[in-house]
């Protein structure tokens, strides 16, 4: 804890209103700190769905099992797409910090398109699975699988909307270098969605029986 204590002690000499500006005892802005705290909490949300899925894995009484419907080559591709969207997101953050608004918009659009491709892939995957006989209510695997991946999909969709809002803000000149941190904080959310998918891809798709 020592460095935090130091942070508070060496606290702004220059800012008379530490309580009100985004100046903070730690030097991390409120928004970023708040986002990290939220992400820490979200770990527990996904953890519950993942562990419910794992617990029920192999217990389906009827209908298709993971081995019947999971298409590893296809999902690997969409995993790769989401991974690359994380790269473009971090490049967007980097452009924002440099004040390069043109590149910022370029990378934001790329990230949003990659995210949307991932969602499109998920829609295609779900449709195929339903055609193969795995509905949401078919069995315990269907319910836990669709709920888990669906929750993740909702997170990605919210992320895409946030990216588009940032794109609009940037087009109206409201994401100058000075506000690069907005991009960074939304970026944290986006990367989190990506790491959740890293876990889902491994435990749901690759370690299925």
């Amino acid at each position: 804890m020592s460095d935090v204590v130091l942070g508070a002690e060496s606290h702004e000499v220059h800012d008379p209103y530490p309580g009100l500006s985004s100046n903070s005892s730690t030097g991390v802005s409120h928004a970023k700190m708040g986002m990290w705290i939220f992400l820490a909490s979200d770990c527990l949300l996904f953890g519950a769905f993942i562990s419910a899925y794992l617990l029920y894995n192999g217990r389906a009484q009827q209908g298709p099992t993971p081995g019947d419907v999971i298409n590893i080559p296809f999902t690997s591709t969409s995993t790769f797409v989401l991974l690359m969207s994380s790269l473009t997101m971090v490049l967007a953050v980097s452009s924002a910090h440099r004040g390069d608004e043109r590149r910022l918009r370029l990378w934001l659009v790329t990230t949003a398109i990659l995210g949307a491709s991932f969602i499109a892939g998920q829609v295609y995957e779900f449709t195929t699975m339903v055609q193969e006989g795995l509905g949401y209510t078919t069995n315990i695997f269907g319910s836990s699988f669709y709920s888990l991946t669906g929750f993740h999909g909702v997170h990605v969709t919210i992320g895409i909307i946030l990216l588009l809002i940032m794109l609009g803000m940037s087009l109206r000149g409201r994401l100058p270098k000075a506000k690069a941190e907005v991009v960074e904080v939304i970026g944290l959310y986006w990367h989190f969605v990506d790491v959740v998918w890293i876990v889902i891809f491994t435990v749901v798709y690759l370690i299925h029986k």
Partner: protein
Amino acid sequence: MSDQPIANYEHAGEGDIALEHAASDKTYVLVAVFLAVMTGLEVLVSYTRDQLGPFHDWALIILMAIKFICVCLYFMHLKFDHAMTRRVFFFGLSVAVVVYCGMLGTFHYWASGFR
């Protein structure tokens, strides 16, 4: 600096300084290439269930953990940011891992590996 100075960041929070200088775009691309390779490796491993036997699942879990940590440290800047952000996030993550693994343990889940 920009012609629109923003007045509200204190004397260089340690995290922020670091963010600017710690990682270049080149690093990010390298990390992404590394992650892509790891993903490819994962997919490869997933087809060797019969050869690897009981190590198959754990090999995948280890690869997953490496990818997870890489994204957190580099893309999410945890490596360069204030210690508090690391603490908060990894604390939540550890609570999640410990509690849910414990829960699965009460179902004797680990006795049979990932079923």
